[in-house]
């Protein structure tokens, strides 16, 4: 099938194609979640452009793609700050003081949970169990690296280390 991917930036298309080759999926639609991850990395969130690119690549309707993305908490359905701070506040992290970390971040950043600082640098959300409960409280940054055994002091130095 000769498809021209008019809405997919070249660099992104390369990554999509690499996914297709490596994934060896029996059906292309199975690439939806991995492709959304790749698109989010490229555009920073599940923007209309990201939706359009994934939809075109997988020959799905944009609404279908958006409907699927919104099922998963890791997909940002709105433009977030540069660094999304994700604080686990499930049982084990709660026992170790996770709520104080969220409250401290709200105060320090001057935003509410779910918000973004006016300079667009930080967003703050709470997340459910990250699967590292013995090393809590746990904080994840941008769906990527985990920071474990967090304290107020460690949060402050983490904030400073984020450019």
């Amino acid at each position: 099938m000769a498809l021209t991917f008019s809405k997919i930036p070249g660099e992104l298309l390369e990554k999509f194609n690499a996914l297709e080759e490596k994934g060896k999926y029996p059906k292309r639609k199975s690439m939806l979640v991995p492709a959304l991850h790749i698109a989010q990395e490229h555009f920073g969130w599940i923007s209309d452009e990201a939706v359009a690119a994934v939809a075109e690549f997988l020959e799905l309707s944009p609404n279908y793609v958006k409907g699927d993305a919104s099922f998963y908490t890791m997909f940002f359905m709105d433009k977030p700050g540069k660094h999304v701070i994700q604080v686990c506040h499930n049982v084990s992290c709660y026992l170790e003081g996770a709520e104080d970390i969220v409250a401290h971040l709200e105060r320090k950043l001057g935003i509410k949970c779910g918000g973004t600082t006016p300079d667009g640098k930080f967003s703050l959300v709470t997340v459910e169990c990250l699967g590292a409960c013995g090393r809590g409280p746990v904080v994840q940054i941008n769906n990527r690296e985990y920071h474990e055994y967090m304290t107020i002091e460690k949060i402050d130095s983490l904030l400073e280390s984020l450019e």
Partner: protein
Amino acid sequence: MAEETKIVMLDMDVEGISSLSVYEKHGGYAALKKVLGEMTPDEVTAEVKKSGLRGKGGAGFPAGVKWGFIPKDKGEKYLCVNADESEPGTFKDQAILEKMPHRMLEGAIIAGYAFGATHIFIYIRGEFWKEINIVQRVVDEAYEAGYLGKGILGSDYSVECTVHPGAGAYICGEETSLLESLEGRRAEPKMKPPFPAIEGLYDKPTIINNVETLATVPAIIERGADWHLSLGTEKSPGIKMFSVSGHVNKPGVYEIELGVNQLDFIETICGGVKGGRLKATIPGGSSVPVMPAANCDCPLSFEGLQDAGSMLGSAGFMVFNEHTDMVKVIEVISRFYAHESCGKCTVCREGTHWINMIINRILRGEGAMDDLVTLQDAADGMEMKSFCPLGDAAAWPVQSFLKHFRHEFIDYIEGRKKLVPKYEPVGAIGHHKLVKPAY
């Protein structure tokens, strides 16, 4: 005195064991070689069946029996490795994925050989970004060494392998939702039957097994079913990895023979209770009933925990000391289920939401005794009446907290306690999935 028994975790602390060469130096892939060289697929299934190996993902279904459900005819068949690990309190699969990924992969290839899998999918929760990369590297190494792909080690068995990321949804750990997610659909559970072994991924026969279940298989092949049966108890043969968190001095992942006494486990292996005396445990992840300290003198096994009023579940073992506010703990747990309910069926979607709202109202000091009746009704209304087991998982904690810690709810209702929320949670960017107390 309780001791650790390292089988899956054997050599886990060896430097570089996540790489193929070091894993092979420590006996890695010997079981796969034995299977391909000396055993027929049916013999492998029979050995695992005989060993009594029970699934480690939560339900405890016998692994060999499940493999035996796969139809014998030729054609596409799939193995999905469940590495979604999202049950609160559970972090043992993460340890395997990070430190011992080849053992899981070796077990998966052996399982695949046993029932004729043509493709293995390793479904890893998206937050485990680091582990996804590790497992992808491990799969690449295995392809290069001829453990995956066409004609494995010169045999006529071939299998492909794909590492697949999730993206943050607890329900994807439920096996039919996992398949939906993998097929590119919203991950809502599907009706059973047909069971996945008959009609699973892309409507083809499919086995879903937990990471730890598969990582146990190589040892069973090497040492034999009788060896496995000699460990643990009659109904819970073998070993189990426990994820220990909360108020203990030594949190972490510990592998023990099933049947070890719970109090002994806490004292000798977990380093004892931190910050006071034991008030309660949740032994099997947030989905199982809470156990007050008075009931904790029991064996850690499927039957031992069930007789004592709880369940082994995923062995996500959480410990609470005497100063823990149990009403707040159940608020956190109920918030989790409200957040993670997929919304497909009414009792669970509405029940989880209202239960969390009512518990929040009680915490704020605005509850009434009637609320305890409503909570009980809402939980009873979900148990065994929901489309998938998440509804039960959301009901059991509520019922058990009401049963064992009713007086703590009453302290709030009668005004002796009050808890002002420190913030209003928002669990994702732009989803408005906010669970917000309405009154």
